[in-house]
């Protein structure tokens, strides 16, 4: 069982059936609040972990990309030099081999260009994660606020009032969330518009 699942179960036990049907007062209510806070912190922690992993992977990929690019450039220069040396002798087999080498080098360069588009995924993921973390934080803040309201704390809230409260919290969190910064569903090239 993961840390997140364990946290889920604890909240289920304390915030559902037993607590709602018996007593929302005092210690149980406070525990529920703390558990919810921990739960949301846990989600934020995991989002941060994903962000770190993605950033680390992107950094490594960029280093690999630059190295391959440099090797391709060196290879290109070597082929050109050998070609120049072979031309005076008119060595046909060597010139043919060099032509093939040039073709391969050009194909690698084309693939590298395509990799430039794909390697931008890290930026998109980071922005989406930041947006999700912000939404989670807003929802947590609103739920905490409702939890502090008097009728809730005094145990007078009926189930429908709690549901209404949660629904209200979600709506407020939605309106306070920033607009989603990334709408792309794939890594195809984006639109271009000149004004």
């Amino acid at each position, binding site marked *: 069982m993961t840390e997140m699942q364990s946290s889920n179960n604890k909240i289920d036990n304390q915030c559902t059936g037993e607590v709602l049907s018996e007593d929302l007062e005092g210690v149980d209510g406070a525990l529920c609040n703390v558990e919810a806070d921990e739960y949301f912190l846990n989600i934020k922690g995991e989002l941060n972990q994903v962000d770190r992993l993605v950033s680390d992977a992107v950094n490594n990929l960029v280093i690999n990309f630059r190295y391959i690019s440099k090797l391709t450039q060196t290879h290109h220069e070597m082929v050109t030099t050998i070609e120049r040396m072979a031309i005076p002798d008119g060595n046909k087999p060597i010139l043919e081999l060099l032509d093939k080498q040039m073709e391969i080098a050009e194909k690698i360069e084309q693939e590298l260009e395509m990799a430039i588009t794909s390697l931008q995924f*890290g930026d998109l993921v980071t922005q989406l994660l930041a947006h999700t973390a912000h939404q989670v934080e807003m929802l947590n803040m609103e739920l905490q606020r409702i939890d502090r309201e008097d009728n809730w704390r005094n145990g007078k809230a009926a189930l429908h009032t709690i549901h209404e409260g949660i629904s209200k919290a979600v709506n407020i969190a939605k309106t306070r969330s920033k607009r989603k910064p990334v709408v792309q569903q794939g890594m195809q090239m984006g639109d271009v*518009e000149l004004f």
Partner: protein
Amino acid sequence: MAKTILAVDDSASIRQMVAFTLKGAGYEVIQAVDGEDALEKANKHTVNLVLTDINMPRMDGLKLLELLRKLSNYKTVPILMLTTESGDDIKAKGRAAGATGWLVKPFDPKRLLEVIAKVIG
């Protein structure tokens, strides 16, 4: 003499991909990590084109655009927005603030170079 492009983005990988593309085409590239950094570098160097992201810490791309357009030497310099944002409302804000064009990420290197060549000749 090579033309100079100021590339502004808080993402290191995007800056590197932009710089790789532009340097490969013979441009000089100055990199900035956010709007404030870009404004400082724009004042220090002669820049032929600015390519900027929007969502950045400290100062975003729209604010940078607005401040650059107030500087006498940046009134006519092309400023392209390179961003994940593609909503009509934010594009309209960019256009109103003086953006030359709008490119949605991820960018394609060939297309980026075509657009840049078109706006700076």
